[in-house]
């Protein structure tokens, strides 16, 4: 494994709370140039909360109660609003989960680009419209849509506009929060193919949040698995794809995936119900559903061990 490049974003022991509930508990992850880190977890795991929190873009009533999030060396959790505004859109761009309804219905597509450029000091005279046109072409949209109203575009097209807006100022880091969950599988595939191509050309770092582990095995360089607000495993995607998952929950998720055509195995569900962050089980939060659980697991929360392959489990070693 080559020495990982200097991380564009490095998140250390991030904790986030909604009132008394700790929705994210000391989560750490990092992403370098050209890398794609996948954040995967089921509903209520806190994957979106963690990523939005790290960027300080988590809406009320969420609040950050601990940890650091260094973007190009600066801790976002220590910056004030103006300093953050300089970076939002320029140094880190977010493609939100509700991208289908994220465009301002009262502004044309072109206006969205113009205002984003203007917010970061790019005067209209400096060819903003041409750049916007080339960005639309890059994501497979006809530039004439610069003059279209958002409601006139299909879901897939609006998603592409949101991605193009994310790339408007060539940010070193692009964060996508379940960008294709609401789309049909064919449109999703087309958008992801384009995204991988754009990353190969521009070399930006990418954080991709989804519940679709199978998709991350193809798309991501590394995968971070969250359960009930805690990081349970973080490893190279290739290792997980080759069956090298160590944490029982990750193994359970992989076993629950439907088989690929020609694959012999039958999927197996994980018993029990997902843990609720508002009332988490004591110790390791996965112990009620874990086949390897020992008495110790329901008492003491496991430490995260390992560097290139991190695991938070009493019974399994990291690497």
């Amino acid at each position, binding site marked *: 494994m080559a020495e990982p490049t200097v991380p564009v974003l490095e998140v250390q022991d991030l904790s986030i709370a909604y009132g008394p509930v700790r929705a994210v508990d000391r989560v750490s992850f990092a992403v370098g140039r050209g890398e794609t880190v996948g954040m995967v977890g089921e509903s209520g795991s806190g994957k979106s909360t963690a990523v939005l929190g790290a*960027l300080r*873009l988590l*809406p*009320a009533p969420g609040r950050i109660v601990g940890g650091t999030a260094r973007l190009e060396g600066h801790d976002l959790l220590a910056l004030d609003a103006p300093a953050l*505004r*300089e*970076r*939002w*859109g*320029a140094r880190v*761009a*977010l493609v*939100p989960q*509700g*991208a289908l*309804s*994220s*465009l*301002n*219905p*009262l*502004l044309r597509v072109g206006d969205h680009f113009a*205002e*984003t450029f203007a*917010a*970061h000091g790019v005067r209209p005279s400096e060819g903003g419209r041409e750049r916007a046109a080339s960005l639309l072409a890059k994501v497979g949209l006809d530039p004439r849509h610069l003059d279209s*109203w958002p*409601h*006139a575009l299909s879901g897939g097209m609006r998603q592409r506009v*949101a991605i193009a*807006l994310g790339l*408007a100022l060539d940010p070193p880091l692009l964060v996508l929060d379940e960008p294709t969950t609401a789309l049909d599988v064919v449109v999703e595939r087309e958008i992801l193919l384009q995204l991988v191509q754009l990353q190969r050309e521009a070399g930006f770092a990418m954080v991709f949040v989804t519940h679709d582990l199978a998709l991350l095995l193809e798309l991501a360089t590394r995968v971070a698995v969250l359960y009930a607000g805690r990081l349970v495993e973080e490893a190279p995607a290739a290792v997980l794809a080759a069956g090298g998952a160590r944490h029982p929950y990750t193994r359970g998720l992989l076993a629950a995936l439907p088989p690929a055509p020609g694959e012999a195995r039958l999927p197996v569900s994980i018993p029990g119900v997902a843990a609720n962050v508002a009332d988490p089980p004591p110790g390791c939060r996965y112990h009620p559903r874990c086949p390897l659980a020992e008495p110790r697991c329901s008492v003491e929360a496991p430490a995260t061990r390992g560097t290139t392959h991190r695991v938070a489990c009493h019974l399994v070693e990291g690497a």
Partner: protein
Amino acid sequence: MNLVRRLSLYLLAAWVALTLNFILPRAMPGDPAQALYARFQGRLDPEALGALRLTLGISDAPMFEQYMSYLGQLARGELGTSLVYFPAPVGEVIGVGLGWTLFLAGGALIVAFALGSGLGAWAAWRRGGWTDTLLPPLLSFLGAFPYFWLAMAAAWFFGVQLGWFPVRHAYGPEVTPGWNLDFAASAVRHALLPGATMVVASLGGWMLTMRNTMVGVLGDEPVRFGLARGLSPRRLFVDYALRLALLPSLTSFGMALGFVLSGALLTEMVFGYPGQGMLLLQAVRGQDYPLLQGLFLTITLAVLGANAVVDVLVVALDPRARS
């Protein structure tokens, strides 16, 4: 196009108002004009009775024919002759009143809507600030007073006690009506107190509508995505939050027109302001039914017209409605 559907709705409502106005006097048992004549116990000579029958369009002709002549009269702007202002035609009497009502009630309405929406937007933007915690209960308490009672209290305190403002009529006796400055100044001075009470009474409603809409808009995806692109607070406040929140408020503004105008009419009475309200009072007290019916028509048509204007405005502002 739903604008066409909305406008046709207003035409239909106007027709219903006309027909209701035609049916009402005839729906009463007995011959309405005779009943009225009896009520006047001879204070009316037979010739006035004839005028009364004419104005009510009552004759022995079949109902449909009466309806047609009634509509014909309306088309020619003849609303019959007023009893209280006998023999002045109703149309003329109303014409003067309508002007003053539009000036007073219209002005107060626009000021209240603009001020209320501005305060509401600011209260939502500064969630938790004093505008958000103190103003809403205060304004909704003021709003709980009936319009005309606030007018009475204001007229008594600021007018009679402190004498800061005139409390009767639309302009002072010392000025001559016309397009000259001191007439305009006097008209404004006379409109200030009644206008202010109307603004205060309705401010709370507009503020709460805008604040609740704005709170919703500030949590929606477009604003969040704007923030994520580093847009300035000013841009987010004006081009995102305010514009998105204004549309639903404008629609509720259109719907509330009828209600607010009613309140304004009562305020005019307290101040003896020579608008539609004053006429309405005199018509009721003088049982001047032709004037009463004329007022009903003009007020209803005015409200319908205003609603249509608001609807056109909403469609003009919202591209989604234009497709």
